[in-house]
């Protein structure tokens, strides 16, 4: 769902990091992913949400990040789209 939402532009990288913030990332991501994120940012000269998602793919986020965090990201996107009529079951 995360990958589809990003591909279909239901939500963007910034929306994801608004929910999967640095604290969540730092708390849940393994060291190697943190290392990769920092190394890629140093190499590129800056750290951006898109660059973080390039390293921490939706699959890895789904693997390491709490699902509640990821759902909140999706629900917010649906509410912004006007399709959310009620709460999730």
């Amino acid at each position, binding site marked *: 769902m995360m990958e589809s939402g990003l591909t279909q532009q239901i939500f963007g990288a910034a929306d994801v*990091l608004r929910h999967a*913030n640095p604290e969540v990332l*730092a708390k849940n991501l393994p060291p190697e992913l943190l*290392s990769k994120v920092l190394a890629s*940012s140093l190499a590129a000269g*800056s750290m*951006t949400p898109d660059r973080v998602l390039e390293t921490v793919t939706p699959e890895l986020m789904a693997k390491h990040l709490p699902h509640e965090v990821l759902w909140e990201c999706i629900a917010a996107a649906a509410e912004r789209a006007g399709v959310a009529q009620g709460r999730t079951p």
Partner: protein
Amino acid sequence: MTTLTGMRAFLRDALASALTLGVATPDDVIAHATPEVLSLHLPRAVWTQLLAACLAAPRTDARLIVDTVTVPVLCEHVPEPILWACLAQLGSRALGRGILAPPPPKVAASAPAPTASAPVAPVAAAPTVSPPVAAPVAVAPTASAPIVAPTASAPVPRAEARTEPPTRELPAEVTRVAPAPSRPSTASRAQTADPAPLEPPPRPASAARTTLGARRPQAAAAVPAKRAEAKPAGRAATATDFDLEADVEGWKKDPEQIDDDQLIDWSQNEETMTGGEGGFNDRRR
């Protein structure tokens, strides 16, 4: 953050001092405390701050990481061997540089040297250059010698004088050239190029003999006959030619047989005028 003691405190102080004094740079620290090392040893809270700082900053570099994590936190969590390796590298590099700045390399100093030595080359070459310059000066006088010393080349101008006059020869000149037996070559050149006006013959009839004597040089007028022969073949016959012939024929007479009445006042006699066909032929005695 706990208070550091022992080795970690020492490493903290050394690393902080190195960064403050400029002996070390953040890149030197991150070269040893790599993202992998940080990811393995830094607390997550520190990582939170680090990620937040990196996302918020326009640029992510080693200075941002060191300033965000801080040296004490690094020295608290990064393994001591890694911190010591960083300090060892800094120390060896600092000692290798020396206390004083090295002198400028000779290549750089010699780079402008060519400009400095450039004058040397010309100076060295000056002696070689000057002689050629002087050579022409030395040669000049010799080159002008022929001009200054016309006597050496006198015969040539005379030959030229002999050749040139025919083109410009005038009847009066035919009789006038002989009286100057020893003329300088340059003067002859001048005269042949542009003959100067000739002196009038002596006037008084009473001094016939002397006049005759003065006219005696005209006996050399026979020479003009040769010059008449030297005239260009293509030249049309003029009264001058006839005059010459007449003169030659006239002078063939025995001079002793000439009376005074036959003497002509050259200065005023119209017969002496050139162009007249009568000329000497019309004379009747």
